[in-house]
């Protein structure tokens, strides 16, 4: 029981349960926890090996940044859509992420996809490579900007969620890359 309650999924389910009922009462918390335990027990899934820890400030910064990105890019795409007579050119590019975590990879991909202008259409897991489709690419600098942007997004994600060891590893890879490949 205690172990189960420590499971992030059970915690999340309890929160979700309370959100659904819209009433933070003891009964709802207890039943939510119960539902969480039962659901995770009846439908066991492979354990999520999450060694990181949540950095509230970084998470908040991530979210704030995301909202801004979302608004800005939405306006851009909308403008693109409303610009008659203009045929935007696109591109499919790849970005090698530095982290090796599926979770960070997924979150990065999700954010990139959510944010207008870029969309992840393929992932190579072995190398943590994202293949993105970019909308409205005028020249190569747009492509480079997009790649850099993707890496920046990853960094924000890692900063928000990674443990200190993960963060250290991440920094190591980044500096190696920056140092090793001057392109």
């Amino acid at each position: 029981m205690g172990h189960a309650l420590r499971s992030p999924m059970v915690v999340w389910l309890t929160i979700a349960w309370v959100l659904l009922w819209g009433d933070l009462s003891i009964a709802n918390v207890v039943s939510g926890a119960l539902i969480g335990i039962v659901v995770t027990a009846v439908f066991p899934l492979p354990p999520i090996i999450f060694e990181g820890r949540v950095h509230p400030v970084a998470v908040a910064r991530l979210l704030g940044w995301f909202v801004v990105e979302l608004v800005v890019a939405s306006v851009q795409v909308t403008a693109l859509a409303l610009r008659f007579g203009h045929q935007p050119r696109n591109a499919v590019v790849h970005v090698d992420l530095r982290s090796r975590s599926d979770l960070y990879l997924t979150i990065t991909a999700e954010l990139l996809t959510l944010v207008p202008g870029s969309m992840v259409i393929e992932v190579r897991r072995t190398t943590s490579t994202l293949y993105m489709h970019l909308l409205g690419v005028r020249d190569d600098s747009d492509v480079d900007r997009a790649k850099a942007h993707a890496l920046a997004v990853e960094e924000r994600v890692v900063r928000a969620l990674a443990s200190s060891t993960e963060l250290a590893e991440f920094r190591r890879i980044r500096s190696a890359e920056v140092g090793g490949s001057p392109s």
Partner: protein
Amino acid sequence: MTLLLLLHLGLAALGPLVVRAMGRYAFLVLALAPATAFCWLLAQSSRVAQGGSVVEVVTWVPSLDLDLAFRLTTLQWVLALLVSGIGALVLAYCTWYFDGDAEGLGRFGLNFTGFAGAMLGLVLADDLLLLYVFWELTTVFSYLLIGHQTERRVDRRAALQALIVTTAGGLAMLVGLILIGDAAGTYRISEILAAPPTGAAVTAGVVLALVGAVSKSALIPFHFWLPGAMVAPTPVSAYLHAAAMVKAGVYLVALLAPAFADVGPWRPIVLGLGAATMALGGWHALRQTDLKLLLAHGTVSQLGFLVAIVGLGTRSAALAGVAMVVAHALFKASLFLVVGIIDRAAGTRDLRELSGLARSMPVVTATGLAAAASMAAIPPVAGFVAKESVFIAFLDVGVTPDGDGTGIGPVPAGIVLAALVAGSALTVAYTARFAWGAFAAKRDVPATEPVAVAANFVAAPALLSMLSVAVGFAGAAETALIEPYATAFPPGAHEPDLALWHGLEPALALSAAAVLGGLALFGLRGRVERLQARAVPLLDAGRTYHSLMRGLDRLAVEVTGTTQRGSLPIYLAVVLVVVVVLPGGALVFGSPWEVDLRAWDVPAQAAVGGLVAVAAVLAARARRRLKAVVLVGVTGYGTALLFLLHGAPDLALTQVLVETVTIVVFVLVMRRLPIYFSDRPLTSSRWGRLGIGVLVGTAFAGFVLAATSARTADPVSEDFAAEAVSFGGGRNIVNVILVDIRAWDTLGEISVLAVAATGVASMVFVHTRRAGIARPAEGPTIAARRRATGDDYRNTWLRGGRTLAPERRSIIFEVVTRLAFHTMIAFSLFLLFSGHNNPGGGFAGGLVAGLALMVRYLAAGRYELDEAAPVDAGLVLGLGLVVATGTGLMSLLFGGEVLQSAVIDVTVPLLGEIHLVTSIFFDIGVYLVVVGLMLDVLRSLGSGVDRQAAQNGDEEDEPAAREPEVVRGAG
């Protein structure tokens, strides 16, 4: 009398067993049934002779006025004696007629004894419907007996022909009897005879009853079936087609004559058809070479004669008629039995091949000649006595001013009499032909050398012939016995009596003329034969029958070919056209109705409605399967919005879920089907469909407008709000309706889902509803793939993902599924538990849970599905049904009605007030069934189709080689 019938029934049923035990001697045992009846009848002689009756009534179907009512008076007594006596004799005769090892003796015994019982019942019945019961039974037994030698095509056809012809007449008779019974207010024959009804319906009824009599007794135009029936074994011919069954028509005429002889069409029918049949039958008999057929045509002739007499409806005719019936039964049965002996002894019945039997079979010859004398009405045998009385009766009709009470004028009476005399002459002629043909030594034919026959074989015909002779001398006694029947008719010109000698009267002259004329015809037989060969048959009813049957068959083929098109679209179109024409017609042409309209409640309804309509039209136009599916989905989501705008959130919720599920299920199936619908080139049919569609749509709109505008009453649901809370313990009325007020509907609905799920499984797995459940295991190949994909140092998000080919995997999808799945399940439970007070409930919850499973399947394939739900779908479905029905039954155990719910409010420390309504358990059952349905759909149309595709090698990336890596798990 009931007991006698039961005895027949019992012995008949035992027939096959008795035959198996005793061989042909079983017939002697079976003969006990009619013999017992005969003895019983004899015991009733004095009572009946005094005009008394024996009555017995056992209630059967009072609603139909159909009882086992029996009544024995003179007419019944006479006929019953004939039926049982001759029946016993013929059964005894069978013992020697058949070989011991002949095939089908058991069923022959059954049918024959059964027939004897039916015939006895027929003549004893005192209820018109009961009479019909036995009447038809004799028909059926006759069918079985005629077709005794089943493998001969001719026999089968003759049996069927007899069946159809006599049943046709019988059914007409049934209607006639019902018309009579309805008019009389009773079906009891004795009561009807006592107070005959009148009226047009009765006249029609009598005519129809006569049709039955005429068909059964093989009168024109039904006379053809009887000779055909001669394919039957000779005992059958002797009994059914001479003595008993064919007499049923005569009996019916005799029975009804006292009451209905004066009904307008009666005499024209019985006299006209009777006389004509007599002549025609005699004429046909003259040309026969098969002795049996000769007798058969003779029987037809005699039956016409009998019907004419007993139908005449005078006291004299009644007496003469019954006497003639007795005489005919005796001599004709005897003659048939004699022919049977000849057939067995000589191996032929062809009179051109027989010669000199008089010498080689003297006893048989004597027997035959005595019977033949009676047939030809040669004094002093029974036939003569009877026929003499007949002539007297008809002469009375001709000479008395009122036609002896019949009202027949002298001219018609004269014609009938002339025909009867002519018929009698023909009778004499064919009798002579029979006697000559059977027994005489012919110059150019070698003498027949018959095998010896057992004396017992001859006993039956000999006894019958002796009786023929004896009755001739017992005219006075016979008169006395028959008299009570005759007195049912008004007294005529003079009191009739049966005697060998009435003095030198005109009748004697007529008898003499008939005999002489007949002998002359026989003498001139060469010339007659040539004449017959040249004569065009006036009425070949047999051919008519066959062309009728062929016409019937052709009609059946044409009608069936027209109405039974075998085409689903046509069937549907017919239904739709009926809807447009009938209710639509009623709307247009019926009494006026009012229309009470508003444009909308909120304008959004029009906007959404318009969009839905456009999507529907586009869906109808689509040539690509999935495009049509998607557009239907639009109408579905649009409908959900319309639900919402109307104020039905539960409906909108369910519709949205159902629509989503529907689209995915469509996709699962459509992935295998061709992308495009095939073209239907016929433009005209397209316009036809369009026309029907528009008409139906218009009619539909009209229906809805008319019905809605007609409403004045308040809906029954107006009280639901108060009751839902107080009695159902819930605030969401729709949910309270579903799980409580109308939980019974819901119970039915989940049963539909359970069988639909089963059906889906059966379409894919065909012979079982259980799919094998297979979960990924740690196999070497998987391990290799893990190394290749880096799984060994990374998280496993979904175990099934590893079984997918890399190019089908999406790590993003897997991770999101891993994260969202439990939330979806928890949300489904939320819907389930909150449904009683908010939109939701078991259906919505179950659908969400099912979609969660679907997401697992979509994300990581069929092994992931088994991983997610390693249970047999049937178990979930079954559990759901058991929970739902169990909830319903539980309340019964607690003294409530089925599905009655209880509201339990308890206060738990810390948690506070807990409000539990037991109908939640019912909703849990619903939830489980819906999950089971989804699981079955995924197993079948998802995994099952995957597997079949893999086996067919249709999908390279699902190689069958991956199968061994998984353990086929238990459900």
